[in-house]
């Protein structure tokens, strides 16, 4: 009896030791991968930061007309945004490689599926980034144009355009991620339609006097009056 117990204990201990011995190299490999990734990320971060500063990247971004990127960057610096994004991407890749090195079925499957999902995440992020830039650009254009037309509801129009594009970009990103399914489509249709209707009502009700004045003057004015309307000083 005692012999059997002792044998069972030594068997289980041996099993645990074997399991630990099998797991330890994977753990060490994971730690090495993460450490290596951290080291590479640090080197890349320093090199990238120096080269971006050296090429005066922040100013160039503004000169290329992407001044809106500043608003979305930490510290208002697009180069900080880029170095941060690159650094954390390298660390994440290192972590996923480390998970795969554990040689366990679940972490490996997780890391492979995460890596396979990464392109979708990147495209969704790109869609959101382009959408937000486009939303800011167009809403500013609409705001200035509406102010120059002396529309009191200029800000409302601009906000409407901004959210229309943001909602559209968000829905596209979610669809690309495969999240939400029909709910996203439905919610998008309701939101998009709602915004368009709200805008139509706001502009229609808010500007009806202006529109009727405009039509009246269009119908009654002559060529000379068209020319006289402007500030000739």
């Amino acid at each position, binding site marked *: 009896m005692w012999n059997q117990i002792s044998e069972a204990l030594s068997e289980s201990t041996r099993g645990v030791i074997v399991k630990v011995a099998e797991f330890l190299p994977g753990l060490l490999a994971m730690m090495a991968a993460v450490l290596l990734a951290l080291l590479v990320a640090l080197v890349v971060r320093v090199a990238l930061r120096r080269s971006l500063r050296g090429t005066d990247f922040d100013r160039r971004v503004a000169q290329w*007309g992407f001044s809106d990127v500043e608003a979305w960057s930490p510290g208002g610096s697009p180069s900080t945004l880029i170095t941060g994004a690159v650094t954390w991407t390298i660390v994440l890749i290192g972590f996923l490689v480390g998970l795969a090195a554990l040689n366990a079925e679940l972490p490996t499957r997780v890391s492979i599926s995460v890596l396979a999902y990464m392109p979708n995440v990147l495209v969704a992020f790109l869609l959101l980034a382009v959408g937000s830039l486009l939303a800011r650009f167009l809403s500013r254009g609409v705001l*200035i144009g509406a102010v*120059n037309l002396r529309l009191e509801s200029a800000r409302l129009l601009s906000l409407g355009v901004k959210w229309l594009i943001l909602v559209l970009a968000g829905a596209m990103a979610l669809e690309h991620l495969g999240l939400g399914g029909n709910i996203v489509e439905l919610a998008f249709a309701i939101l998009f339609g709602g915004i368009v209707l709200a805008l139509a009502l706001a502009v229609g009700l808010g500007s009806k006097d202006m529109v009727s004045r405009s039509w009246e003057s269009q119908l009654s004015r002559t060529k*000379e009056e*068209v*020319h*006289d309307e402007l*500030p000739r*000083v």
Partner: protein
Amino acid sequence: MVNALPADVEEAVARTGEAEIVVGIPSFNNADAVGPLVEEVDGSLRRYFPSRRGVIVHSDGGSTDGTPGRALDAASRPDVLLQVPFRLYTAQKLAEPYHGIPGKGTAVQTIFLVAQRLGAKACVVVDVDTRNTQADWISNLVRPVVEEQFDYVAPRYAVRHDPGGGLARGIIYPMTRALYGKRIRLPVGGDVCVSGSFVSGLLARGAWDADVLQLGIDNWAGVQAVSGGYKTCEAFLGATIATPRNVAFDLSAMIAQVLGPLFREMGRTAAAWQKVRGSEPVPVFGQPSDVEDAIPAVDPRRMIESFRIGYKNLQEVWGIVLPPSTLIELKQLHVAADDGFRFGDEAWARTVYDFALGYHYRKMNQDHLLAALTPLYLGWVASFVLEMKDAGSKLREERIERLCAAYETQKPYLISRWRWPDRFSP
């Protein structure tokens, strides 16, 4: 290829031989105006320059209302008129430029090329939009070039109440004067005369910008004259009457078309204008007109309202370009009563300079930036109208002179921010 003319035009130019004076008329669907203008110019050349050979070069962009035929009918002899069409793209036709001729820059370039081939000493470009061009205006424009060897003669109109008048008085004249040190009242004038060497100088620059060809030729040529060390002067012309247009005019589009080329040229000529201090008058030829230039009755309240709508909605946009001190001044202006609505000269000069800086450093999309200036410009116009409503020509001249002085006083501010955009923010 900038120096190429179509083969048939080259042949026509070769048949014409040589000419001392070329008068160019760019046009596009100006059937009513072109005939009388050709008659007037033809008469002027025969009357004032009988011993010099003059040729009228009519450059049309493919009018569909019979403009070329009317011009041909109006010429006294076939050899006095040379018709050289310029190519106008559909996109250019759709845009409505402030000067009324789509692709005017291409037309002027064609006229310059023909003038160069003919060996012209003087090349006048007249505004087909002006209904009452007089024979003696052509003479006043040409004489300084052929007799006094000037390179660029700008018009000095007695009265020119076109929609761009305020823009010329409030921004173009004071700003070009402060930048380049030459007191030319209308460096964007529609009627100008240039020398053969000026024409060759511009053509030698290679391809002209698309914007210059489509929209801002008048402004661009004027800036080249004052910044390029050319001998410049002015010629007195009378009161102009502009042809009314069929389409309503977009003020913010005009501001963009006029100021865009000026701000862009600031970037190209920065080394030159930063050395200029003060300004000097240029010679003026001809007899000043005794027509009183009265401000037409304009209601400033709508302009003030435009400014206030702009202030309420565009503070965030203006804040990208304007420093806090200017925004505070705009706030004071926003709350001022209509009667006391006055845009200070220094504040206005700094505002215009800040927009030029924002344009140069691309602080935001350049079209948005120029469009965002419109409510501020209307605020300045309202202030000017209120201040000058009972003033005569003399008082108004003095007022413009004070404004120009403010632009010159504020020039160090512009230079500082131009050189050190990040370090200097009042």
